[in-house]
């Protein structure tokens, strides 16, 4: 905690606290979840960066979408994302959430996750190793620092389009819209 760190803390405690205390939602969405346990335990220890798995979305502000997103999981992802509290960031693992990856022609997986919930960062690699996850976290820090990790603001502003896309897929969702 050198001197300019303390200066940053005093100037913008919200940014600094958001950076150094990212609690990830403990929800395995795809094949990438196998990378999370080694990254939070002894070998790679994510807790050094302040990342611990949060028991429920209300206490979390980081959502790791690990791997391909099937239609059934997308419903749970949207529900969990909407239950997370406001300054929230999402990171997509691998190429499947970007453009469908190797399931590009499957009838059951989502091609562009970005159409349904905002994603702040992507990690390349068909299941990135823990080191890659930590590099992504440091990039997320700089994004937060420069106020570019604004996925949640984008979600709030264009909620109508997001909601329309979600309803296009499922016909009708059984929970009311989040923002009027």
């Amino acid at each position, binding site marked *: 905690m050198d001197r300019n760190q303390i200066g940053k803390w005093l100037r913008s405690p919200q940014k600094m606290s958001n950076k150094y205390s990212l609690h990830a939602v403990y929800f395995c969405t795809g094949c990438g979840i196998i990378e999370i346990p080694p990254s939070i335990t002894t070998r790679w220890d994510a807790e050094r960066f302040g990342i611990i798995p949060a028991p429920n979305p209300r206490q979390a502000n980081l959502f790791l979408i690990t791997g391909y997103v099937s*239609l059934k999981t997308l419903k749970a992802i949207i529900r969990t994302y909407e239950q997370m509290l406001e300054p929230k960031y999402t990171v997509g693992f691998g190429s499947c959430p970007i453009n469908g990856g190797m399931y590009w*022609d499957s009838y059951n997986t989502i091609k*562009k996750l970005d*159409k349904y919930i905002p994603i702040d960062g992507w990690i390349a690699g068909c299941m990135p190793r823990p080191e890659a996850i930590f590099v992504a976290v440091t990039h997320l820090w700089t994004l937060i620092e420069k106020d570019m990790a604004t996925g949640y603001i*984008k979600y709030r502003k*264009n909620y109508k*389009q997001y909601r329309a896309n979600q309803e*296009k*897929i*499922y016909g009708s969702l059984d929970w009311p819209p989040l923002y009027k």
Partner: protein
Amino acid sequence: MKKLKDKIEDLFDNVIINDFYQNRIFVKTNKESVVSLLNYLKELGYDHLALVSCVDHVEENEFELVYILSAYIHNEHENQEKTNIIIKTRISREKAKFTSIINLFENAEPYEREIFELFGVDFVGHPRLKPLFLEINYETPPFRKDFDTRKFVDDFFANIPIIEEIEDEK
């Protein structure tokens, strides 16, 4: 002791059996005698229904339902080797319908729901014939060979627009 193969042959007439493999017996029958065959084998001690699956023969315009039975406890037929009995039957592809075997084997329920959802075979007498895995419903069941998945992906996922940022004035 008579072998299992002979027992089935003299009881059921239009049955083609081939026990070429070491511990597997294939039985092809018509769709009427499947249920009685399953019942008979269950009394013999083959009370474990391992799997129900369906094969789509598009060119003959038929589905092939496959039932795999095996026995947990050893009975007199097992003394030579552990045998799996695989029963196959053919049903027509249009308006595919078949009787449900839930009253014989309780655990057939999810298999039949899965085949109903992915192949469109309607099982008569099934208490809860509802979709099991898929979230949305497709007009042609996805596992059928004539379901063109690429065409579906193009016209279903393509027409979902990308989110354009509304540059609001504030």
